[in-house]
């Protein structure tokens, strides 16, 4: 049983009973497949992304075992190629973004005081597509047909004549399939944050985490098409004989790189930005004050998401482009460190001015700052073209982006897991176990990746399946492998901690951390309708604010209870003035059917069963037509002039 904080005052038992009647879903198999509840979908995103993370992490562990000593024979070169490609591809596309979208799915409606996402069925559809696309890509590994070209899949190696077999077809189709999920999720976040905020939550009262998710969603909307165009052309080149990346036919291999990095660099921020948002969400609870410089952080978030589209060529400094473009992109890459720096200093100032409560989530935030700054430091070195040209494609690069991605995404994700676990599961985690997990993780991370800087500078190229002894790389590689095992132990401890909390943890109160955002005003775990009364927001820290609390108890009004039906409130985009109560959709099988038809389409394209692919397209169109088919209404209600 969960505790409800606001039964007294303006809302009575009848309202609660009606809300439960309209929003509750029975515990049945049918309900499992048809749910549109953003909290269940968010949880599924988190668990599924966690599963893909485990697979990608185990791939890395096998690779580190292979590299522990020179000329080891754990893996064949071909197996190694597939493992490092799947490791990178899955970590980027199947773990980092969906994991953070999982947090967003669970938290955005709660943080803005809404009862669901703007498009709940699209949300369910996005999850199913993510699940199917992930399985589609991983299923190729047992067949020895997994992508094997590195996560950025450069031409001309990705072409049929250089890389026969299904490997890169799986890559191109899998990412196109997954793109449908990411794009629909991003659009859903944008619209939810624009239209479903609780009344009074004007743009200058939107939590920083929501700002970060929305900025990320905008980057997805404008960056992902470049990757999709790239992959579509790749598949056409491989399967249907076009010549986009084939110099023999008038194509150009660098076209692949340009399009890939036009997507790829914003993607770094697509991954890191929600992580930074988690940091801004966690800090107030453990420093007992708001984050310093809210408007500056918002501006930094917006600035990063725009400038990130102007730095892609710094991934291509070693490709022989004109010097002038190097100067431009070098400058842009230097400029983008400024808004990142603003955020770091704002967090440091918050910690300096606040009263620190040293619990596990804060430990991970501190670990994040240390690690991310080190990664940013090597990043600033890359912005200098001559240095970049020396170390490109060496282990120095591997060290750099693991510092950035583990620092910028994984530390915040782990902080977020511990921070929101009480809200998501309704149970508290074991603090001692969590601290062990943190210290092992922090030490394991640096033991694994710091030596890579050195072996990179000593000349070890990335993506080699083995190396000769006596080149000065042996010790570094061995240390790195030991670190990888430490990391694995720490993540296992985290998993045990989560399972232990779900099974044995003591029940969590609604607001165990005395946090400032609205999710802490809901029950733990939240009711299916999130809020018995949709609050009226009066400040940036609504849960610390008495007037906002009052609006859900003694000040509750009928227009925010909305118990007659499955309804939530739409408000205006900028000032969040009440516009109207809107009916939310019921559970439905259609999202699953649509995603399933798309899965059939992509499988049959992969295996060249084109008639089945056509049948799948027809099914997709028919499902969409039925999904959006308007309900029949009487002419008076529609407003038809006869």
């Amino acid at each position, binding site marked *: 049983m969960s505790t409800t904080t606001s039964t007294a005052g303006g809302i009575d038992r009848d309202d609660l009973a009606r809300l439960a009647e309209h929003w509750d879903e029975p515990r049945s198999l049918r309900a499992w497949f048809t749910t549109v509840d953003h909290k269940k979908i968010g949880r599924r995103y988190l668990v599924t992304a966690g599963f893909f993370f485990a697979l990608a992490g185990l791939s890395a562990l096998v690779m580190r075992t292979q590299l522990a000593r020179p000329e080891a024979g754990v893996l064949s070169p071909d197996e190694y190629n597939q493992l490092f490609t799947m490791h990178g591809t899955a970590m980027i596309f199947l773990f980092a973004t969906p994991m953070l979208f999982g947090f967003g799915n669970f938290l955005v409606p709660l943080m803005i005081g809404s009862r669901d996402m703007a498009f709940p069925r699209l949300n369910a559809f996005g999850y199913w597509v993510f699940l199917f696309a992930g399985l589609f890509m991983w299923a190729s590994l047992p067949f020895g047909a997994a992508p094997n070209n590195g996560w950025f899949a450069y031409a001309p190696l990705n072409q049929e004549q250089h890389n026969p077999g299904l490997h890169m077809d799986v890559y191109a189709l899998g990412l196109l399939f997954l793109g449908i999920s990411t794009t629909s999720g991003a659009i859903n976040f944008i619209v939810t944050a624009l239209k479903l905020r609780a009344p009074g939550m004007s743009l200058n009262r939107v939590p920083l985490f929501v700002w970060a998710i929305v900025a990320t969603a905008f980057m997805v909307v404008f960056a992902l098409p470049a990757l999709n165009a790239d992959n579509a052309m790749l598949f056409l080149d491989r399967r249907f004989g076009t010549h986009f990346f084939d110099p023999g036919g008038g194509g150009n291999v660098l076209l692949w790189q340009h399009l890939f990095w036009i997507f790829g660099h914003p993607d770094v921020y697509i991954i890191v930005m929600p992580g930074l948002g988690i940091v801004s969400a966690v800090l107030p609870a453990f420093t007992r004050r708001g984050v310093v410089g809210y408007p500056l952080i918002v501006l930094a978030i917006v600035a990063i998401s725009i400038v990130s589209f102007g730095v892609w060529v710094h991934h291509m400094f070693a490709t022989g482009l004109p010097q002038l473009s190097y100067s431009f992109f070098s400058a842009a890459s230097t400029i983008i460190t400024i808004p990142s720096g603003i955020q770091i200093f704002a967090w440091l100032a918050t910690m300096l001015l606040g009263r620190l409560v040293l619990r596990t989530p804060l430990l991970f935030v501190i670990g994040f700052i240390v690690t991310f700054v080190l990664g940013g430091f090597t990043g600033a070195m890359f912005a200098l073209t001559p240095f970049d040209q020396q170390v490109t494609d060496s282990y120095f690069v591997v060290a750099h982006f693991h510092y950035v991605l583990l620092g910028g995404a994984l530390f915040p994700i782990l902080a977020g897991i511990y921070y929101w676990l009480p809200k998501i599961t309704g149970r508290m985690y074991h603090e001692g176990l969590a601290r062990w997990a943190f210290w092992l993780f922090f030490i394991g991370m640096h033991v694994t990746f710091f030596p890579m800087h050195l072996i990179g500078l000593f000349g070890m190229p990335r993506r080699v399946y083995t190396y000769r002894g006596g080149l000065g790389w042996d010790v570094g590689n061995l240390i790195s492998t030991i670190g990888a095992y430490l990391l694995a132990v720490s993540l296992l401890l985290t998993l045990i901690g989560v399972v232990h909390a779900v099974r044995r943890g003591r029940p969590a109160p609604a607001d165990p951390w005395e946090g400032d955002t609205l999710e802490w005003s809901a029950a733990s775990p939240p009711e299916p309708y999130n809020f018995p009364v949709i609050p009226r927001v009066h400040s940036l820290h609504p849960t610390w604010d008495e007037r906002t609390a009052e609006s859900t108890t003694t000040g509750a009004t009928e227009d925010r209870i909305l118990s007659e039906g499955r309804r939530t409130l739409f408000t205006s985009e900028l000032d969040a003035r009440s516009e109207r109560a809107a009916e939310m959709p019921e559970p439905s099988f259609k999202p699953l059917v649509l995603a399933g038809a798309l899965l059939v389409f992509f499988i049959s394209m992969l295996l060249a069963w084109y008639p089945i692919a056509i049948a799948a397209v027809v099914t997709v169109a028919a499902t969409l037509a039925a999904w959006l088919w308007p309900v029949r209404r009487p002419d008076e209600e*529609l407003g038809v002039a006869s």
Partner: protein
Amino acid sequence: MTDRGGAVAAATGAEALSTELPVGRPTSWWGMVMFVATEATLFACLLGSYFYLRFQYGPQWPPPGIEDPKLLKPLVMTAILLPSSLPVMWAEHGIRHGQRWRLNLGMAATFVMGTSFLVLQGTEYDEKLHMFTLTSNAYGSLFFVITGFHGLHVLVGLSMIGWLLVASLRGGSFGAHRHDRVRNVAIYWHFVDTVWVAILFTIYLSPRL
């Protein structure tokens, strides 16, 4: 002109003037606009690829053996596709006033125009295929993929319009208070139209510059 329902007074009152504009976009409008934004970016990437490959290719474009694209047919296609947005607008304004006949008539007119465009594109392909194909060289790949991708969008737009027409003819679907779907289909159709101008410029006009 009389102030029907106090619309002018409501729009010029203190409350209205101090309130942000525009007021009350529905969620589906935002959803469609964002979808169109991401689709437009996709076309921008394809057209960008065209110019990239063209300028990397060398002085002669189209490549030797392929003559400059003829303009007559694509201009006729443009003359059909671009005005096809007008009946959509007329239909949308009609249903906002509850006039279902305008919706039906406008959508039917656009459907015919869009279909004619696709038929003409089919004959255009028939001509080009004698000269080059998808697999001849990068020029052929770009030509057929970009125009084909746009043709696919026209087909999707036509499906939407056909779907709207069927729903409208069934009755009980749209009226002055319920026309979100009409507006969203209209946005998509305008997009498909507009993007054609960029394709006309890139594929047909730019090689002659």
